[in-house]
């Protein structure tokens, strides 16, 4: 597919009405073509603006309560989350360690709290402070190195952290940076954890990035 072919279909893709057979081919082209990707982004934004310009109407009385009641019901029936992903609101580092043990299925494992570094064998849990660019303590990061599972938790606890969606990354000792996931901070609180696909013993630091990609906080393991 070339750009002239793609151009004929980008609008339908942006409006989410392009049939599946053509969609896959177009998406493959867009992935490789920055110009088409940029145009698709612009057209998608316009398609969103169309929806935003749609009519408003007041729902029937009591709508809010019914929605919240359904959410509350859903929360009670919610199945245990995928073992590979957890979302937590504010929690303490010790509680995080307990969760690591439970979720990682590590009953019976020998755990020792350590400052640990690469090369150390055996399972290890370590927690380091998350420090902002100005030197303030804004939370902490816990990693657990286990077999077969390793885990990562970042906790933010600081009024100085604006409400936003942040990204968590690990800086590895081979110079690479690995994206771990996203953390949402609300009113200075947030937490996020996940199973790790890399060995945390080779992590030099964990960083919290704001939506612009700037480092908001760093937790140094070495």
């Amino acid at each position, binding site marked *: 597919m070339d750009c002239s072919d793609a151009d004929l279909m980008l609008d339908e893709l942006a409006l989410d009405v392009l049939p599946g057979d053509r969609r896959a081919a177009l998406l493959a082209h867009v992935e490789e073509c920055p110009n088409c990707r940029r145009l698709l982004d612009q057209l998608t934004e316009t398609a969103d603006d169309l929806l*935003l*310009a749609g009519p408003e109407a007041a729902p029937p009385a009591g709508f809010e309560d019914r929605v919240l009641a359904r959410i509350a019901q859903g929360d009670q029936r919610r199945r245990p989350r995928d073992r590979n992903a957890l979302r937590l609101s504010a929690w303490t580092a010790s509680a995080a360690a307990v969760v690591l043990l439970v979720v990682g299925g590590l009953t019976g494992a020998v755990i020792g709290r350590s400052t640990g570094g690469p090369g150390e064998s055996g399972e290890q849990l370590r927690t380091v402070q998350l420090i902002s660019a100005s030197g303030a303590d804004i939370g902490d990061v816990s990693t657990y190195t286990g077999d077969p599972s390793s885990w990562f938790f970042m906790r933010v606890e600081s009024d100085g952290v604006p409400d936003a969606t942040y990204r968590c990354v690990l800086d590895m000792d081979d110079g690479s940076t690995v994206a771990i996931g996203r953390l949402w901070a609300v009113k200075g609180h947030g937490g996020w954890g996940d199973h790790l696909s890399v060995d945390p013993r080779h992590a030099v630091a964990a960083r919290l990035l704001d939506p612009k990609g700037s480092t908001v906080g760093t937790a140094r393991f070495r």
Partner: protein
Amino acid sequence: MAMAPPPGGLSDEALLAGLTFGDPEAGRAFVQRFQRRVFGLALAVLRDPVLAEDIAQEAFLRAWRHGPSYDPRRGTVSAWLLRITRNLAIDALRLRRAEVMDPEVLAAIAPPDGDSVEEAAMTAATAATVRRALRSLPEEQARALMLAAFYGRTAEEISRAEDIPLGTAKTRIRLGLRRIRAQLTTAAEEG
């Protein structure tokens, strides 16, 4: 970039995060902020208040359930939520094989009154520009665009419904969307 909170409240992203985390205050504020848009869109597509409320409730439920998948790089919280609503409404419409509202009627529906405390000035200005742009389009382009945007009709379906060649349907959608885009860009540049 985290949006500056509108007067008197947290940003849309913060409220979505609060909804997802189970903060009851944030959850209620989130529903209050978006319920008119969500219900309004569902009602416009379905023309059935009972079904529209069901769809609107489901949209908020999905926002709660799928909140972590929201990616701010791909659009605003409003747009994300309205896309969820639109897709649910379209699915319901197809299930019921209900007749599509004449998109000209949809386009003529009274616009939001803009009195919502939470509505950012920028969103209101954009919405006003979009409505003006829609009215300025040739009728056939506006119709094709509304059928696609609000009712999820593919070019093939529009071609059959309007008894026009497929290429014509595609062109109407494309030209319509690009003209809207151009007017929004001009309006943004003029500040």
